[in-house]
């Protein structure tokens, strides 16, 4: 079977050039509000019905539409609710366990999911005294988060929420700071086929331990000789992980207590000591 080509190469070139110019000139679309699909098309991540677009310019046109704007306001509303909920839950967890979720890790995982609407930075907090064997100190600081990250919706301090349109406006103002989608698209196009290699690498991944050991991995993989301190820290982290896996949790005072949902041997009142 053969296809008859209509038009000549010049024609094709011209149309490609035209499209490229259109793409360059298209308005700024943040990376997390649209997604490049596997088949090369684009979808809007704000609209719940996930419309599909062939080109960036089509997407740009969509983004200016009434439908999109109304979806955006709904989206922001949801997001705010969830952010609040999340903060509350984090707070609750902090109160009962004294643990602060490792935010660096969270941010990383968020990025992997393409869900970067949440926290992108980790700030210092003086109220957290625990070190989870992390180089960065995880914290819980509501104000900092809401100030430092460009999340206009989260206004936990005052109970008066801005109106929906105001929110949208505020949100749109902050848009230009985000990573533009074009770059991602370009990168994808350049690195076509790289995903394969990545998925193959996954297999190697299995043997790697869970994320908190990422530091351990760092020490292990980096060429610099590990100091005694590193070894001790590694041991400690190991021990803590072991305790957590067998159902011990740290309470507010930093003491190990038994998780009520987990079973223990009847004579096991104290957490086992580290081997050294």
């Amino acid at each position, binding site marked *: 079977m053969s296809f008859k080509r209509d038009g000549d190469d010049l024609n094709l070139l011209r149309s490609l050039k035209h499209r490229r110019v259109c793409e360059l000139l298209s308005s700024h679309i943040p990376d997390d509000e649209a997604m490049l699909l596997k088949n090369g098309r684009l979808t809007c991540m704000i609209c*719940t019905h996930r419309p599909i677009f062939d080109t960036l310019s089509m997407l740009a046109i969509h983004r200016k539409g009434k439908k999109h704007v109304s979806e955006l306001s709904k*989206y922001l509303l*949801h*997001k705010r609710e*969830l952010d609040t*909920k*999340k903060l509350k*839950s*984090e707070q*609750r*967890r902090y109160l009962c366990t004294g643990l602060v979720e490792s935010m660096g890790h969270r941010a990383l*995982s968020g990025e*992997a*999911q393409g*869900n970067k609407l949440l926290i992108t930075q980790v700030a210092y907090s003086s109220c957290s005294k625990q070190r989870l064997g992390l180089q960065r100190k995880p914290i819980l600081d509501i104000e900092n988060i809401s100030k430092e990250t460009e999340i206009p919706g989260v206004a936990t301090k005052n109970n008066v929420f801005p109106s929906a349109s105001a929110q949208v406006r505020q949100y749109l103002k902050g848009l230009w700071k985000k990573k533009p989608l074009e770059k991602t698209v370009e990168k994808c196009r350049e690195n076509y086929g790289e*995903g*394969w290699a*990545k*998925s193959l690498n*996954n*297999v190697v*991944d*299995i*043997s790697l*331990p*869970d*994320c*908190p050991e990422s530091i351990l991995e760092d020490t292990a993989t980096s060429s610099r000789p590990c100091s005694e301190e590193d070894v001790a820290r590694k041991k400690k982290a190991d021990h803590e*992980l072991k305790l*957590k*896996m*067998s*159902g011990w949790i740290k309470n507010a005072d930093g003491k190990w207590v038994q*998780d009520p*949902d*987990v*079973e*223990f*041997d*009847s*004579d096991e009142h104290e957490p086992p000591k580290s081997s050294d």
Partner: protein
Amino acid sequence: MHLYNLTLQRATGITHAVHGNFSGSKMQEILVSRGKSLELLRPDPNTGKVHTLLTVEVFGIVRSLMAFRLTGGTKDYIVVGSDSGRIVILEYISTKNIFEKVHQETFGKSGCRRIVPGQYLAIDPKGRAVMIGAIEKQKLVYILNRDAEARLTISSPLEAHKSNTLVYHTVGVDAGFENPMFACLEIDYEEADTDPTGEAAHKTQQTLTFYELDLGLNHVVRKYSEPLEEHANFLVSVPGGNDGPSGVLICSENYLTYKNLGDQHDIRCPIPRRRNDLDDPERGMIFVCSATHKTKSMFFFLAQTEQGDIFKITLETDEDMVTEIKLKYFDTVPVASAMCVMKTGFLFVASEFGNHYLYQIAHLGDDDDEPEFSSAMPLEEGDTFFFAPRPLRNLVLVDELDSLSPILACQVADLANEDTPQLYMLCGRGPRSSVRVLRHGLEVSEMAVSELPGNPNAVWTVKRRVDEEYDAYIIVSFVNATLVLSIGETVEEVTDSGFLGTTPTLSCSALGEDALVQVYPDGIRHIRADKRVNEWKTPGKKTIVKCAVNQRQVVIALTGGELVYFEMDPTGQLNEYTERKEMPSEAVCMALANVPAGEQRSRFLAVGLADNTVRIISLDPLDCLSPLSMQALPAAAESLCIVEMGAGETGGEGEPGTTGSLYLNIGLQNGVLLRTVLDQVTGDLADTRTRYLGSRPVKLFRIRMQGSEAVLAMSSRSWLSYYYQNRFHLTPLSYESLEYASGFSSEQCPEGVVAISTNTLRILALEKLGAVFNQVSFPVDYTPRKFVIHQESAHLIITETEHNAYTEDTKKQRRIQMAEEMQEAAGEEEQELAREMAEAFLNEDLPESVFSAPKAGPGMWASVIRVLDPVEGRTEQLIKLDQNEAALSIALVKFANQADNQQFVVVGVAKELQLNPRQVGGGFLYTYKVNADCTHLELVHKTPVDEVPSAIAPFQGRILVGVGRMLRLYDMGRKKLLRKCENKHIPNLIVNIQAMGRRIFVSDVQESLYMVRYKRQENQLIIFADDTHPRWITIATVLDFDTVATADKFGNIAVIRLTGNVTDDVDEDPTGNKALWDRGLLNGAAQKAGIVANFHVGEICMSLQRATLIPGGSESLVYTTLSGTVGVLVPFTSHEDQDFFQHLEMHMRSENPPLCGRDHLSFRSYYYPVKNVLDGDLCEQFNSIDIAKQKSIADDLDRTPSEVSKKLEDIRTRYAF
């Protein structure tokens, strides 16, 4: 990923069996349906062995099967009711050995539907009409007739529908040559359906309805309907017309009733029960299958109860009015799904589970002391007769057909260290269960082994006369002598045979009508029938190095590569051809084909030379000893053999079958066997197939197998190359390695092999041709459910669990209790007698595998845990669990917090489990310590759980247990297993857990797979992805980190994969920190697995495993099914292959539509559209279709038919056998 489905062994369970003269000869055959294939079997009346004539995959579900014969005809046709929405009439063509579709009439949608006919078939005993019925409402009647050329015709359908009616069974009533009549067991649910109080549902009675086909009006009427007192389950038609009283026997719970139209009263007889049965006496007894035997003078029925007892039923008549039903206990055989009584006096029993049997009916049970029960004997309502079951008296077992069905679990492993892996299977149900070890290879039965004085080099057998049936002499050649043994009642040495005994022999053969020839290094000895001997001596210092001999020709190669040709003239004289032929180098092997029937000579000589070539030399008088063709070889040839293979079966009445073609088999010194087609006209060599057989040079021997030629190839292992059912088979023999062999035929062993192995002479028989596996079977007590392999000691640990059963202890208690009751019930005078009876009852030992186990009632369970050595078949330990404990899952674990290498077995046990409605009284996890050589399990502790522990898997030094719908992580504790973590989000019941790295794949009983990740830091199990289809998973296996293969209870296999952008690094969501819009639909996981492949197997797969089946082969996905199929899905390695087979499959679909009328594509897409799987079973049918069609398909593929079949063979041998 593209997969190719190959069946290694077809289903072995039988769903339907009918018998008849399908080939049109005097012989009766049995046609069996194995679910989705039809197989024609023929019991050999002389040997009693059952041979398979033909097996055809129909790519549809056979729901009913009937044989019929037109009035006055001699040949039976086959009617098939299937899920195709079509009625199909088949005829067996014995000359071509195929089933031919005579008629195919469409009447409804495809699929097994409630109101589309296909479930029931009834034939008018005179062969004038067939009724095909659905479960509900619809019944169609087709009139069968013949046209002017005596071809079968079929009418358009006549409807006999009645809505709101469910049908239980239909049967054709024998009304002689009156209008055809059909009897149906029906129930009219209309009233019950509309009555909201539910009273009507209780009152609704089953009816027996007669439908009459009025041949004059061409119309079906519902003639008569009568409500039945008991609920019946099936009908038996009673011979009518001149042969009997007509009417039907109604088999219902506890009673057997005779009914007929007209003035006939109902005759009713209770079904006798076993005396002192452990079964619940309140439980009703039903007949489950029956067989009718009819001769000109008499008829009787054999009906089997659900306990396996067969009763012979006869009817007493008075002027065509039945007065009495008589029942007599006949024998007890395993419960059958169908029975056939053959004219030759055989009873074929197609067992419901396990092996099938062929019995010889030795006595009809007419004149023995067995009591006969009669409907005329007065009995209270509810009372019944009693009989005592006993071992076989009237039947004699003559053959057993292996059946794996049902296979409940299978693992491929090499535990016996044989370098070819074995398949370890749990088969069967109840007391007939077994653990079977399957090995690739043909089963060899050793008929005799005798030691010889020294190590022989070669062995031959010869007949004294060409027309004799059996061989007369075995000639054994040693280094410096030849021994001649004569075959008679015994095998003994003779000296008067005329053979020269003081020299080694190169070859010997019968020559002409009644002469013999012996070739030895210094000459040729021609022994005439009157013991005159002609000798031909080698010239000068030359000796004979190689020779080839057949019935009329002798060719020898002298040292230096000179060929001398002798041929027998009409006077019986062996004459040397005037010229000799000098070959370019030394001859290393030679072969002659057999002389074709009716010809003077074989026209070709094959010579293997030392220069790594094989040459074909003409022996035609026109161009005698001139070379015809040559083939270069990769290594020096060791042995040659020309055989004629591929010939069709010769018909029963001597009509010639299709002729085969000549094949030159070349055994090389490097252990490779080549098979090349030798053109019968030009002598050209073409289409070479290669197969590596073993490490030693390949020696080839021509033998006869089932009437056609076959090649025995011997390397480090012995192989048999034969043509069977339109396919070449090259199968290893499951026997020790042999050195030399020859065909052997004697009265005791008509088709055997005589072979030498070191210093012994062995007579072997190969009976189960066509079988891919030979099996060793070890019986077990209860239905084996799951097993694990202890790799270090190669032991199996098996859980056996039986529902509706008593444990041994409970049985013993019940027996004692019953014995006591017996004694108590007896009067004063009978005390002595009662005690004796009680004693006899306690000592009674009837094997449950034949007499079936007592049924204890629903919710009663018996279980054992068995440690088995599968090589020796020795049970090392048997742990009996308490009554009502059901062992459902097992895993072999090493706990991280225990000593290194200490293994534990964890068994999940449910207590008081009721299946419907599902209720459970809790469960336990039994933890056993395994000793180093796995001979003893020591109970460590018992962990109570609140639900059914239905799946267990080791995971990172701990265990994951599916407790009902909860997924839990347990660690080893001191007094019990300690629950460390739990996930409650699996919807129904966890049936399987697989783990790879940090990922866990959990199968739900009806909601497919859930991908779970264990987060160590948070000590949480989090579902991060799931499947998009609701699969009812039976088994799942991990293929790689992202890919899982699953099988479901509707007979599908699917491969699902997590796509590249799925991450398992997600957070759990109890607090709502996951985005709302990120949550999947209907509470599913946010990320979904994609489908890589979908395929409908058609049978329920119970095991899936990634395994290598042949040493050095590639991995494939091996599956086994409940019906006993062993199959593989093999991945395509190149796009060209995939493309080729895709096209072949496409052509086969259009050129060779399935036999029962189901569309192949829609069958393979029964539940999910078939995706990325090509059906090798269909592609391989290429070899059995018409040559012209083969040619046209091959042309479309730009290849020759032989190239296509070579490709088919290649892909099979690359992965499996």
